[in-house]
C-alpha cells in the first residue's frame, strides 16, 4: 500500500525531483541517473517511513544526498566548469540579464543554492528545508540570508559590470 502511494507520489512529482537533481549536475543524463538511483534508495528503505505525508521531504532529502554523492564522485568538475563559464562570460556587454542572474544562482555553492531552490522555488518551509539538508533551522536561516546576500551582491556586480561594458 505504502509502495503504491509512494509510486504515485513519485510519478506525480517526478519533474520537481528531476529539476532539483538537474540543479546539481547540469546535464540530462546525470540528472536522470540521480532520479533513478534515488528511487532505488527510497524503495529499499520505504519500510522505515510510516507516514506518506513525509514522502516529499524524505524524497527530496534522498535526491540531495544522491546528487551530492554523485558530485563527490565526479570530483566537482561540473561546478568548476560553471565558474569558468561565468568568468569568461561576465564581461560581455549585452542584455542577457536573466542568464546572468541564473548563473549567479548556479555559481553559488550547492549548500546555499539548494536552500534557495527548496525554500523559494519549491515553496518548502524552513523546517522542512532543514530536515532535508540535515541541518538545524538556525543554520539554514543563516545560510539562506547569506545566499540571498551573495545573490544580490553578484547581481549588483553583474549589473555594474554590464553598465561599464567591462571586457
Amino acid at each position, binding site marked *: 500500500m505504502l509502495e503504491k502511494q509512494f509510486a504515485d507520489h513519485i510519478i506525480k512529482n517526478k519533474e520537481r525531483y*528531476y529539476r532539483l537533481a*538537474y540543479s546539481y549536475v547540469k546535464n540530462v543524463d546525470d540528472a536522470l541517473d540521480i*532520479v533513478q538511483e534515488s528511487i*532505488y534508495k527510497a*524503495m529499499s528503505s520505504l*519500510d522505515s517511513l510510516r507516514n506518506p505525508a513525509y514522502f516529499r521531504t524524505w524524497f527530496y532529502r534522498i535526491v540531495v544526498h544522491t546528487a551530492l554523492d554523485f558530485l563527490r564522485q565526479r570530483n566537482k568538475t561540473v561546478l568548476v566548469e560553471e565558474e569558468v563559464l561565468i568568468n569568461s562570460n561576465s564581461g560581455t556587454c549585452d542584455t542577457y540579464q536573466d542568464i546572468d542572474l*541564473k548563473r549567479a544562482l548556479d555559481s553559488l555553492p550547492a549548500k546555499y543554492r539548494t536552500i534557495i531552490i527548496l525554500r523559494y522555488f519549491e515553496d518548502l518551509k524552513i523546517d522542512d528545508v532543514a530536515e532535508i539538508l540535515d541541518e538545524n533551522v538556525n543554520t539554514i536561516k543563516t545560510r539562506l540570508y547569506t545566499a540571498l546576500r551573495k545573490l544580490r551582491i553578484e*547581481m549588483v556586480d553583474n549589473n555594474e559590470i554590464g553598465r561599464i561594458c567591462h571586457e
Partner: protein
Amino acid sequence: MNNNRLDQLKQDYMNTPIPRELDFVVRKALQQNRKKDYFKKARVAAASVAAALALVTVGVNSSPVFAQALAEVPVVGSMVKVLTFRQFTVNEDNFEADIKVPEIQGLENKDLEGSLNKKYLAENKKLYEEFMADMEDLKEKGGGHLGVSSGYEVVTDNDTIFAVERYEFTVAGSSDTKIKYDTIDKKRQVLITLPSLFKDESYVEVISDNIISQMKEQIKSDESKVYWLEGYVEEFEQPFERISKDQSFYINADGKLVISFDKYEVGPGCMGVVEFVIPTEAIADILVSNEYIK
C-alpha cells in the same frame, strides 16, 4: 531582496527542460524496485535470480477478474473467502513459475485460519524453492525447460461447507499435476478430515471398492479410459488397490463425497487428475452423520 529577481530565478528554475525519458526512467526504476523489494519481504533463499522476480500482493479490489469470480460464488452465512496472498513469478527464457499463495479470510476460528494459511504459504514456498533449485541445476547443466504454476479454487461454498482446492502444475519434459483440498465446516469452524466423517476405518475399504467398480465400469464403457487395476496392468506395475486414509477429498455442492487422485496416482498421464464421486448409498452405513454428506 528584490522579489522580481527571485521570481525570475524561479521562472528559470521551473523552465528546466524536462527530458522525455524522465517518465520512463521513473516508472522503470519503480518497477525494478518492486522486484528487489520482493526479496526483502519474502526472504526466500534463492537470491541468485533477483532480476527475474516479482512480488505482487493482490487484494480483491485490485483484481477485477478475481473480484468478479468472488462475486459469482454464492455466499451464504459467514463471509469466508479466499484471496491471493502472494504471488511468486519467474519469467525467464525457458523457466516459468507462477505460484499463487492463497489466504483464507473470514473464519471465526483464527487458529484454524492461521494454520491453514501457514500451510499454504509453506507448501508454495517449498514449491518455489524446489523450482529455483531445479532451475539452477538445469542452468548449470546447460539449460532445459521448467515450468510450474500453482493456484487455488473454491470448489464448494454453501451454508455448511467451504472447500478450497489447491493445484500444483509442473512441467519438466512431462507434466505433473497435484491437487489438494481443504474442506471446512463453516458452522463449527473446523477442518473436516476424511476419517472424521466415518464411524471407523472401514471407509478405506468401502470407498476403494466403490472406486474400483467405477473404474471398471468406465473402462468397459469407454475405451479411452485406462486405470491401473489388477488384471489391467503389467506384472511389474503396482495396481491400485485402496485409497490412503487421508486421501484427497472434498464435499461438493450436492453434499457428495468426492475422492481425488493426482496425475499418475491411479492411471497413466493421459488420464490426468481423476475424481470419483462416491454415491452416498455406498457409504451411508458408516457415516457418522448426514450433516455434511447427503
